């Protein structure tokens, strides 16, 4: 498992800085926004900020940035924020597809072979139970893949790694946003 660099405070600060910078740029960009646009701006800059803290080293951050940049109006915004080249295009899918096909065919052979061996050894019921469990896991993995950005064509191992990273970043995001929101409310209240 790859070691992760030290965290929270520095990460949160970085995220906060980028987020506020994003919001500022957005509001300069578009002077008068109604509430929906404001909400979108906030969410957008937050997502961009948290994705950029990973410096495009993880799949989800790249995908997130790419998805945001798909929208034309956002693209300009994105490029303005990230003058340094952090916006990296996704890897060419062809390479991944070839690899996954080869692996898939090997897996199919192996699976059939192994189930035969197991059926002989353990009896039919255990095999059935095992296959049901596998089906459950497979379904849930599919759902997880849809949740994590960029999780579509990743295998189980890296998917879990990405999820780990994604969860950590989400938590940072939520924490900072909460604190900012409560700080803002406290300040207005005390006025």
């Amino acid at each position: 498992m790859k070691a992760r660099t030290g965290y929270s405070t520095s990460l949160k600060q970085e995220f906060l800085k980028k987020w506020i910078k994003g919001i500022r740029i957005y509001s300069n960009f578009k002077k008068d926004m109604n509430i929906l646009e404001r909400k979108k701006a906030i969410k957008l800059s937050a997502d961009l900020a948290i994705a950029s803290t990973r410096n495009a080293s993880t799949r989800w951050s790249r995908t997130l940035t790419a998805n945001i940049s798909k929208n034309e109006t956002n693209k300009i915004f994105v490029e303005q924020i990230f003058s340094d080249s952090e916006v990296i295009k996704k890897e060419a899918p062809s390479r991944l597809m070839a690899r996954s096909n080869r692996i898939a065919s090997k897996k199919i052979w192996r699976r059939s072979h192994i189930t035969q061996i197991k059926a002989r050894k353990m009896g039919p019921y255990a095999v059935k139970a095992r296959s049901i469990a596998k089906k459950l896991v497979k379904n849930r993995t599919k759902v997880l893949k849809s949740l994590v950005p960029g999780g579509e064509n990743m295998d189980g191992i890296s998917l879990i790694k990405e999820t780990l990273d994604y969860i950590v970043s989400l938590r940072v995001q939520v924490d900072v946003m909460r604190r900012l929101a409560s700080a803002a409310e406290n300040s207005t209240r005390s006025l």
Partner: protein
Amino acid sequence: MQPGGRELEAMNINSLLNQEQSLQEMNNHQNGQPQMSSHFDPTSSHDDFLDQMMSSIPSSNSSFNWDVSSDAARADHALPSTLLSQFDDQSAQLISKLRQHQISSGAAKVLMLQQQLLLSRGLTGNGLRTPSGASGGESGLLQIPLNLTNGDHADVVDGSFQSTNPADDASVQGLFNGFTGTLGQTANQSQHFHHPQAQNFGASAVPGMNQPAASGSTGGGTPAQPRQRVRARRGQATDPHSIAERLRRERIAERMKALQELVPNANKTDKASMLDEIIDYVKFLQLQVKVLSMSRLGGATAVAPLVADMSSERRSSNGTQTASSSNNNETMTVTENQVAKLMEEDMGTAMQYLQGKGLCLMPISLATAISAATCHSRNPLAATNNLNTSNNPLISGEHGGPTSPSMSVLTVQSAAIGGNGAGEASVKDATSFSK
């Protein structure tokens, strides 16, 4: 118990992180408490909306200890992933130690080394056992410095009682402390304290391990081949395929352990329910981000389109998901969407619609006050449909548990909470009617 010993060996060598999890399991089994400790934390802080938000998120388990208590005294903490790297180093050391012993003397010393580990884990695990249930988010335990030695385990125990809901972070911290202590000392800990735990641990660890290592190995009388990374078991083919498969499975298991520390309520043994928890947690966090991005944005009138927008977003992104949402959720979502639509046109019609359903609109602080005062069990709250719209009216439905008076208070006080002078403030008198 030779086979059991060998199993333990194998487990150690494969992943030391497994032990944490099975230890927790064991502890929980011993407690006999369900992990879904229904603990609702009526915070009096301003950020109540998130608590309400959370309680509205459906789940068959009422294990919402993701309740993030927004106390300012929260210290920042090193997230478990940093600890993971430490675990790797230390596990490597331990593995080499174990190997040496294996080569030289055989099972006896290995078991002793294991016992050391188990004892250290047992100590910290025991200390953290009583405040059961994991909770997400940060906890007050974080003041414990990372350089606690074994002598300070009392602090760990005390510290764990301070926090309302010690998170898995805390448990990881505690375990990490225990770990450093172990490596620093030889096995001179209070053995009497740990022996029963170690034994139980041995017993429960084996079934715990057999699940992930479902390669169908008999595990009996395995010859040790110290040079290989993975040992061959008797009765199992040693062809590269199965070895690779086993390796892959072990890597997945490792990562799942790491995830377990991060996700609350992650004491599940099998992959499927672990994945379920992970999915729910990710969904929850994403929802929090969405809600937070629109909180504190403005007046009541302006919020209605936000609500509608959010629910439509959610619906579109949820197009493919089917079985995960419970029926309860379905009806709530439908109601929410309907109300959101109505709110856009006219608050009055929205209120009437809610009344027809037996629901009401109330500010969050009131809801929490009522829930704290009357509802003893979590269930009425779990059925509560709370949609927060910043400082603003909050839809809540109280079906009324056995003890709570089924009182629906019709109060729309948008201005009262925030003092923002929001646009509309249709304050109706509190009327109560029973269902």
